[in-house]
């Protein structure tokens, strides 16, 4: 449905700075919920603006459902208003001098694909019903709460049945509880309409909860592309491992390239199922999510067993649903999650196991 091919962009006046977009490519299948994820300044919003036609890349190609909307070689740049899109902005961009109805009717009245005048009313009403705001149609836009504005923005982006829906951090201005609720609603809504969606966020939880596929971006490049599960469980780089959620990054040296691989770390020797493409002797991180670590019964044997370590609790934080505990293991430390029902005061000894299948090895040069 949407194909982005090696788009590059440098902003005028920032010629010395690294490129804002440095060859971004990806493909979004019809009906997919696709997310551009990354820290601020990684180029995710610029990418979205290039797709929308609000920015023009310096080079590259963007295709939408068979139509080339941007191609630097053939000097094609279809302007934003002819791309047949719907977009929700971070600020919602609800026009304050109009009512809710006028806001939502705008694409049908002033857009490229105008609706017959008799159709506008019913279509706006349907769009507002979809976001449960039909009761507020005549309210002036400035009198809406943040959550209501967000729904109006969504109704406005969908009312003209665009081929592609673009969402630029639409949830970041909502309070935490509303955000959790809108996350579910938003995904259900676009999935029920079957519309292809590109979503931009810096929040990895949001990305994982909502997306079919995620492109993780950094410094103008896509560093990893896959399902949320892939990104979380099989990060390809230290950056990806760190960005996708809390993790242990245990620095060490690859002593056996494998598979199975073995890494010499301050904790001791850690075995892993694989270290793809890395030579023995490389500086690496062993990536172990706290959730992956199994806490063994106190009387379990530890000595001499591969990937089983004894440690002592040096700090713990009681979070309610879970307890985060830092263990001193060997010369290093390891963060694990404990059940809130388990008593493990500072100083207590624990035996833990790192399953080799859940230990991912990534190169150490970047983070």
């Amino acid at each position, binding site marked *: 449905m949407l194909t982005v091919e090696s788009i590059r962009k440098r902003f005028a006046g920032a010629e010395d700075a690294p490129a804002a977009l440095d060859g971004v490519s990806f493909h979004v299948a019809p009906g997919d919920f696709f997310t551009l994820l990354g820290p601020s300044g990684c180029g995710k919003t610029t990418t979205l603006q290039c797709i929308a036609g609000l920015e023009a890349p310096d080079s590259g190609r963007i295709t939408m459902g068979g139509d080339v909307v941007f191609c630097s070689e053939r000097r094609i740049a279809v302007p934003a208003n002819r791309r047949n899109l719907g977009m929700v902005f971070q600020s919602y961009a609800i026009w304050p001098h109009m009512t809710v109805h006028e806001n939502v009717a705008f694409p049908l009245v002033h*857009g490229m694909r105008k609706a017959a005048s008799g159709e506008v009313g019913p279509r706006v009403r349907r769009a507002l019903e979809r976001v449960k705001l039909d009761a507020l149609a005549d309210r002036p836009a400035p009198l809406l709460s943040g959550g209501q504005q967000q729904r109006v923005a969504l109704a406005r982006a969908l009312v003209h049945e665009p081929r592609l829906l*673009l969402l630029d951090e639409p949830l970041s201005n909502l309070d935490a509880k509303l955000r959790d609720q809108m996350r579910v609603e938003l995904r259900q809504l676009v999935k029920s309409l079957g519309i292809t969606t590109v979503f931009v966020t810096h929040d990895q939880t949001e990305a994982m909860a909502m997306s079919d596929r995620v492109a993780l971006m950094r410094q103008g490049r896509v560093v990893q592309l896959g399902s949320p599960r892939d990104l979380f469980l099989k990060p390809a780089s230290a950056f990806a491992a760190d960005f996708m959620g809390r993790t242990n990054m245990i620095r060490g040296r690859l002593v056996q390239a494998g598979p199975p691989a073995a890494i010499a770390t301050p904790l001791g020797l850690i075995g892993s199922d694989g270290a793809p493409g890395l030579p023995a002797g490389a500086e690496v991180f062993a990536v172990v999510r706290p959730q992956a670590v199994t806490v063994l019964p106190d009387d379990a044997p530890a000595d001499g067993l591969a990937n089983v370590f004894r440690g002592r609790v040096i700090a713990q934080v009681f979070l309610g649903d879970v307890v985060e505990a830092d263990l001193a293991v060997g010369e290093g430390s390891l963060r694990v999650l404990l059940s809130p029902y388990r008593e493990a005061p500072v100083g207590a000894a624990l035996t833990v196991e790192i399953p080799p299948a859940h230990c991912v090895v990534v190169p150490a040069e970047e983070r």
Partner: protein
Amino acid sequence: MTRAGTLSRRLTQQNVALALLLLLVGVLVLGPLLVLVRTSFAPAGTAPLETTVVTLDNYRAMLASPDTLVLLRNTLVYAVGSVTIAVALATAVAWLTERTDMPGQVLVRILMFSWMAVPPLVLGFGWILLINPGQGLLNVWARAWFGATDAPFTLYSMWTLIVITALAAVPTAFVMVSGLLRNIDPQLEQAGKVLGGSAWSVVRRITLPLLTPGILSVVIYMFMAVVQTFDLPLIIGLTARIPVLSTRVYLLSSPDRGIPNYGLSSTFGIFLLLLASLLMWGYLHATRVGERFRVVTGKGFRPRRLVLGPWRWPALGGVMLYFLVMLMPLLMLFWASLFPVYRTPSLDLLAGASFASYAKAIGSSMVQRAALNTVLLVVLSGTIVMALAALVGWFSVRGGRRIGRIVDILSFAPTAIPPVVMVVAILLLYLRTPLYGTIAILVIGHVSIYLAFGARTMVAAIMQIHKELGDAALTSGASWLTSMRRITLPLVWPHMLNGWLWVVAHSARDLTIPLTLMTASNMVIASALWMMWDFPDLPGAAALSMLLVLGSLLLVVPLQIVAGRATAAPG
């Protein structure tokens, strides 16, 4: 789709609008300047643009003439004197209004803003009636009451010119200084107080140093304005034989007798232009320093006010005295408008007062034509300026770095071009075209001169509009023009209206453009006023002055009252 795409890259509404804007503003600003430069290198006695000879004669003549030094000295003395007095007075009044508990603050603010609508030309006429050596009211009274033998007030001297200009310039300086005072974070002053400083040492050691860069930029701006002033030096300075640069440029291009010397006029114009550009550069530099000192917190805070105690009323009295002095020339004109022949004011004469001069003025076909022309001029100027300014604002804020800068510089450049120079340049450029002698050429002049102000208003306004509001219209499928028309412009509408009123008020009171480009067919109220005064038809000129002031105030005062309430409201 593909073909439409290729085409649209070059021929979008946006690019067409940008090209038109650059073309228009370029022609308006650069056209006259190029002609001015060319004419300054043309030999004497040739018509502008009809020679290919390049000569430095005019520059030699200017530099060799002993007059040039006198002109420069006069101009500097005039500007330094009036700016010093104006800024000192304005700062005092602004401080009393913004930073003390003096009563009547809203009234002072409204009066100051409204006073900007009174044409300096009219004030000048009023002052001439007040203190001319023979019949000037103040001199007559001084003789009658104090037995003075000659005239104690001398109208035709450098000092009088300076004081009258300073008084007329106070409102503008007040508006700028009170803006500065309002933006100082009161916490900085409170810190001084908490740490043990007395109220006066806080003013002296904290408030004033913080204000210095801002005041400096006000001083340079006012200096530039005075160097460019034309009307007061014309009606007072010429009789007093005090020529300054601006009047010299005018007289060389529109002499009372003989033929115009456009070459020398252009050369002096370029000299004045360089002086103004230098000041402009100083102004930009000073405002940049001011940015570094910037202590604006933005949100509506209420500065702690100095308690004047029993001095509150004398303070208000002092400020009101200024307004009284400002009112005197207007009252004088009003008196003069009531009698067919000027009589020294006295209560006995009141019985013979009549509004016959008004009826005569309104009935005169010249005034009627001038009134119609004025309405055409101000409405067209205001509308064209604000339409261009809206585009300038949009491209300057949203057009990207390079385009934004070009548009910015082009629209800001006229600030450094003195109107009297600009108008000579416009005269040279359009003299042989059918536009000369029409209202259109006056509109061109006012649009070129006031575009800078309009552009600054609209740049500030569009900067406040979130970019995504316009983008949302584009992604909804609306064209660029629709997005401008339906979203951006409705949102900046109040700023546009404000700018429009400003341009209209200034266009109505300006004499520089209408006088230099005057023909029988494009007379406006300001130039008609000048003609009647010069004729002389004193009652007619006085009546017309009052009508002009009344018209301007009717336009400006209601808006100022609303705006004054709005700024006074947040507690």
